[in-house]
């Protein structure tokens, strides 16, 4: 009998489930609110040293010499490492695209401000920082490459000379007869957009404790790491170690959002522990390091987008040209953000043909890293602006223009032009609910009245898809293939009937241990207090990828329910032996093993488990006496990538409609959000409270993206935003309260019908805010095409619109 993973809650062996689908309190929280959760910087090991990293103050320079003598002499300093050590003990960083990496400590030259040049391990962080000030580096300035357009010109200085070019990747993907669609269009709209660098900035920066074992030449890494397995494999490759000689112990961490980073700093720390003879070395990235040299910068994009439209309002073609400034190397894996838009290229719309002209260029800036949403948020933002431009020109209401182009609800599963398949949806129902929630008619009246009073008020109605549950085929076009994203869980019952769930990822904030607890509690009909969830290290955990790509809720559900199902079969077999019946005649019901159709023949699960462990004489001869089972879940039906980059990559497609009203102050360029309504459909909600948390948090990050957050570099490649005084995160003042509604179309492809929802509104909010700004600016003939639409940019636009151009 094969293992069945429940497709609905009715399939659970429980007549009265109490936990799944409810907004239950999180098991994580008591530790967090008392400050007891073991974040990495809380950990102290015997003999532990502390690291500090010396970083380049300039964007592009040849290193003439490095003198570490004075640093080595400082009392308390145990080890100093430079590029000599990096070349001796490590390989260049792995990258996407491949072979665009350098060693973890700069050798012949530095390529961005913040690049590690040397590092010190000392008895405490204060001494380590004293020591790096004693390291003398002689730099010979080189011209910095900061503008990606100039970087492509012949004769431009090269970031990595050996490559002979700054172009990391250039490729055009054509899906269908795009030229035909544009030739046949009644109207063609084209606009350029600029999305500036921004990034994750979790409140906890990255941290690691590295310990080298000189006897068996192995490395143990305790770290605030998002994907421990993937992280460990990368470190083994860089450090030239067999994969089973790098052990990663993931610690709970204070957020990640894809941009935890830390790979290069970990490799530097690994060199330090090795040079220090195996003493453990802790490196806690500080905020300035994170902002200038960490995993926090993403999406530095120049777009040119065209839309082919018929007079009846049908969009018949989409053409997107993207130039992405990736920074100095490909080590942050930021390029995968240019590949993910293929998973939802045409958004929620039935646009039959599309083209993607993609160029990725190296410059003397920090290498890009992933960030929540992984690339589609800017793509969705520019697509939604084009939808509004077209609707405005055709004089069609933006909501109705979108309705006309939505993928109809009876056509799922639906394959989009760029190859991915959407699982299910009812986009019109989501739109209608959003318009009702916002009282759209009234909202327009309020806007028009405000305009009549001379105020600058705008409304937007936008929609976007959140691709959920990624597979690595999604990123194959930029050179990531075959790594795999399995998710495993082991469910184990002890002799007292208590249950442990063992997983391979650490707490990050989304409430995944609560989800595992909900699932197991309902499956075996036990209470939360009977269940513990533990994270194992990479040597002992089942295959696991962890959070990322809006996948873990779905993947973990599959893994846990698969393990529960295997355990159910095992327990039935043991109970059948005790009942002297066939295993098929026994099943788990409400936490008891019962003989089907034989009243009174039953045994509590804990008693069956106790017998398994304590009374080997009573077990059937071919029974494995471990009351535990492991299941590794993978997404079904994924396909290889074809010659145009098309594949079934992301398993689910959640959809949302946001309706926003805001006001722009023409005197200051400041934006105030007046109304924010969101309706979304992410399938079955396994814990509605945590889903709501993901929605609210991602709206906040979307507000930051749209209005505030930007990494600024000057013409010499110097970063001007190296503190939270300059890089502005949204506070309680900027994030609006929202009205929320839901629609549920369960996914036919996932356990319990849930869809990925962790990236959430990040896919939609920047588009919604920019669209509303453009509606506000439309009466004066201005259009914002840069993100963030910060006060200085809007003020400049408004001023230009109010003052007739010279010569008129």
């Amino acid at each position, binding site marked *: 009998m094969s293992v069945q993973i429940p497709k609905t809650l009715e399939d659970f062996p429980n007549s009265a489930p109490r936990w799944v689908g409810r907004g239950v309190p999180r098991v994580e*929280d008591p530790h967090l*609110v*008392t400050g007891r959760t073991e974040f990495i910087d809380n950990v102290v090991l015997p003999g532990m040293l502390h690291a500090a990293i010396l970083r380049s103050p300039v964007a592009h320079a040849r290193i003439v010499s490095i003198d570490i003598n004075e640093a080595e002499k400082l009392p308390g300093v145990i080890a100093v490492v430079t590029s000599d050590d990096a070349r001796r003990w490590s390989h260049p960083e792995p990258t996407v695209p491949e072979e665009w990496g350098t060693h973890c400590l700069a050798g012949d030259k530095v390529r961005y401000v913040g690049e590690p040049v040397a590092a010190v391990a000392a008895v405490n962080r204060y001494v380590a920082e004293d020591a790096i000030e004693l390291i003398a580096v002689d730099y010979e300035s080189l011209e910095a490459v900061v503008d990606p357009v100039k970087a492509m010109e012949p004769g431009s200085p090269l970031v990595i000379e050996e490559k002979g070019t700054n172009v990391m990747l250039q490729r055009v993907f054509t899906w269908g007869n795009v030229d035909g669609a544009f030739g046949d269009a009644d109207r063609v709209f084209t606009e350029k957009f600029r999305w500036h660098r921004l990034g994750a900035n979790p*409140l906890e920066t990255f941290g690691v404790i590295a310990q080298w074992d000189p006897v068996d030449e192995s490395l143990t890494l305790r770290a605030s790491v998002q994907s421990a397995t993937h992280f460990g494999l990368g470190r083994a490759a860089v450090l030239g170690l067999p994969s089973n000689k790098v052990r990663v112990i993931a610690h709970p961490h*204070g957020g990640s959002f894809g941009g935890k980073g830390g790979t290069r700093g970990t490799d530097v720390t690994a060199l330090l522990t090795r040079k220090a003879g195996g003493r453990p070395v802790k490196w806690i990235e500080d905020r300035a390091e994170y902002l200038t040299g960490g995993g926090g910068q993403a999406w530095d994009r120049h777009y040119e987008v065209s839309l082919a439209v018929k007079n009846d309002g049908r969009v018949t073609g989409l053409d997107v040209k993207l130039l992405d400034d990736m920074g100095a190397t490909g080590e942050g894996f930021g390029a995968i953000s240019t590949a993910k838009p293929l998973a939802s290229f045409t958004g929620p719309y039935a646009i039959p043909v599309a083209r993607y002209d993609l160029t990725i260029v190296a410059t003397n800036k920090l290498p890009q890293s992933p960030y929540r949403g992984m690339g589609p948020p800017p793509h969705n933002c520019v697509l939604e602006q084009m939808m509004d431009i077209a609707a405005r020109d055709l004089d069609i209401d933006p909501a109705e223009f979108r309705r006309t182009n939505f993928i109809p609800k009876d056509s799922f599963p639906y394959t989009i032009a760029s190859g991915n398949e959407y699982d299910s949806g009812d986009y019109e129902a989501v739109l209608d609910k959003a318009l009702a929630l916002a009282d759209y008619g009234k909202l327009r009246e309020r806007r028009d009245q405000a305009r009549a009073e001379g105020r600058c008020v705008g409304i937007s109605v936008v929609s976007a898809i959140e691709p959920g549950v990624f597979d690595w085929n999604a990123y194959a076009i930029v050179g990531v293939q075959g790594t795999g994203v399995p998710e495993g869980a082991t469910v184990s019952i002890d002799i007292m009937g208590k249950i442990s769930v063992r997983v391979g990822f650490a707490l990050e904030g989304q409430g995944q241990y609560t989800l595992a607890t909900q699932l197991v509690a309902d499956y075996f009909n036990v209470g939360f207090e009977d269940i513990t969830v533990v994270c194992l290290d990479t040597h002992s955990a089942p295959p696991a990828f962890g959070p990322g790509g809006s996948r873990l809720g779905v993947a973990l559900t599959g893994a846990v329910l698969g393990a529960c199902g295997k355990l159910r079969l095992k327990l039935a077999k043991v109970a059948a032996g005790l009942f002297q019946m066939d295993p098929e005649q026994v099943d788990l019901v409400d936490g008891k093993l019962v003989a089907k159709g034989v009243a009174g023949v039953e045994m509590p699960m804990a008693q069956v488990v106790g017998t398994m462990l304590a009374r080997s004489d009573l077990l059937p001869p071919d029974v494995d006496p471990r009351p535990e089972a492991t299941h590794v879940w993978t997404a079904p039906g994924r396909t290889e990538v074809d010659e145009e980059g098309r594949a079934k990559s992301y398993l689910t497609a959640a959809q949302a409609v946001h309706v926003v009203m805001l006001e722009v102050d023409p005197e200051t360029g400041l934006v105030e959000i007046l109304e924010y309504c969101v309706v979304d459909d992410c399938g079955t909600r396994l814990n509605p409270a945590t889903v709501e948390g993901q929605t609210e948090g991602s709206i906040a990050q979307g507000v930051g993206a749209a209005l505030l957050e930007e990494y600024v570099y000057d013409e010499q490649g110097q970063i001007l935003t190296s503190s939270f005084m300059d890089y502005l995160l949204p*506070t*309680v003042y900027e994030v609006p309260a929202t009205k929320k509604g839901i629609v549920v179309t369960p996914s036919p492809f996932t356990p319990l019908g849930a869809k990925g929802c962790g990236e959430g509104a990040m896919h939609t909010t920047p588009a919604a805010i920019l669209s509303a700004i453009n509606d506000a600016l439309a009466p004066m003939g201005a259009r914002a095409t840069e993100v963030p639409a910060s006060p200085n940019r809007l003020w400049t636009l408004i001023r230009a619109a109010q003052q007739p151009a010279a010569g008129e």
Partner: protein
Amino acid sequence: MTAQQKISVMINGTMHEAHVEPRTTLADFLRGELALTGTHVGCEHGVCGACTVLLEGRAVRSCLTLAVQVDGASLTTVEGLEEDGKLHPIQQAFVEEHGLQCGFCTPGFLMTVHELLYENPDPSEDEIREALGGQICRCTGYQSILRSVRLAAAKLRNAHVAGSTQHS
């Protein structure tokens, strides 16, 4: 740099005496010397508020305060909020209203809310926002934190009323 100063400080009701370098921050002292690791460090330049502790009942940033500055003073950290192993009403409110996700910023929020609610048991929406304006949370979008603060205020007021009734 290594000349140390002796300080005496009352933390969560316990007197601590220690020798510290003058440059040691209060955050590093609490975390590194006393293993009170519930106080978290998010930016080390006074913007994020994760490291907030109470100094004589007032919320201060322990990353911008030197350990030598608190000589002779009385401090409360997140470890001092529980009473008899039970969560403080503010902590309980954050749990019930899902006022946290990763929980890294949470201790700083709890201490800030503590200062607010013990000075102003029934704060208005604007007063709550003003109190929280210097705390950054990257996960929640603040809405669940606002709900938590309102619930915490209600819990504390009810506890106060219950306490008065008991005494009368």
